[in-house]
């Protein structure tokens, strides 16, 4: 009897493994930074180049840091969603303009609007490496102590915001 059952059991196991593989996106690599403090950095602001945007800004309240660039198509698709989010929700949304050209970035924000409370400008991508950035758009959820609590890889969508981001923000705010 078990002679016939065993192959079936093995087959069922393999189907389970493959099924799981079908539903995991290999381009979304979990970040080792989750649970850790934000990296130390200081960058010029995009809009006020003489001012600095540093990790200090990311402490004190629950906030979001969205990595974007004008060369990134998916970021442009994400932009209206961020505009809507910023208008509707009272959560600081910071931008991280990654490996970009200042003129182009300013022109893009003029055209499409600026959802960010402040934007750090990383022209070379050096600070991006410390954040483990590997593909924009990426969005970090940071708690009031300045610890990275979650990372969204790929564009935020209204559905992702509603079902995942907002509950997480609520939870982090309740921690205080």
């Amino acid at each position, binding site marked *: 009897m078990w002679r016939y059952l065993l192959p079936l059991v093995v087959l069922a196991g393999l189907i389970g493994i493959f099924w799981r593989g079908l539903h995991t996106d*290999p*381009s979304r*690599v*979990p*970040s*080792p*930074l989750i649970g850790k403090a934000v990296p130390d950095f200081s960058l010029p602001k995009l809009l006020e180049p003489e001012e600095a945007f540093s990790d200090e800004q990311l402490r004190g309240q629950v906030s979001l840091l969205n990595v974007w660039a004008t060369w990134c198509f998916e970021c442009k698709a994400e932009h209206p969603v961020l505009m809507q989010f910023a208008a509707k929700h009272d959560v600081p949304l910071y931008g991280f303009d990654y*490996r970009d050209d200042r003129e182009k970035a300013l022109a893009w924000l003029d055209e499409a609007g600026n959802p960010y409370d402040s934007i750090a400008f990383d022209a*070379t*991508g*050096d600070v*991006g*490496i*410390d*954040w*483990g950035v*590997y*593909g924009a758009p990426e969005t970090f959820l940071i708690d009031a102590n300045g610890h990275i609590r979650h990372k969204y890889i790929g564009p935020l969508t209204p559905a992702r915001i509603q079902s995942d981001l907002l509950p997480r923000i609520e939870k982090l705010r309740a921690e205080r």
Partner: protein
Amino acid sequence: MKRAWLFLAALLVVPAALAIDTNHLPTPALQARYEQLTHEFRCLVCQGEDIAASNAFLAVDLRNQVRDMLLAGKSDRQIVDFMVDRYGEFVLYKPPFQANTLALWLGPFALLLIALVSVVWIVRRRTAMASEQVEQS
């Protein structure tokens, strides 16, 4: 036909032209370590490639990072840790041998063992059956 051959020949030339790595380190020893390290890290944007082979932004940045750390006298261990701290163990083409990678490292050998045991078992049983039949006849 001739065209097809030309096309195939052109394909052979492509891999050599893929990555344009402009980094050259001052000593052969450093250059050798540089080449070894850049072949160990996965380019996360283009996951089938290591950072030595890719021209993605990120691969160029990470190659420069490896170069700068080598020039600053960092050890291979420090450079690997730097990458793992930021990008996770997935960045390593050769994952470390540890609790959560046991199945990855030992799985193939376990499967091979199961296969060998099954073969031996089946062969023995058949031999036994054959000799039984001989006895009966």
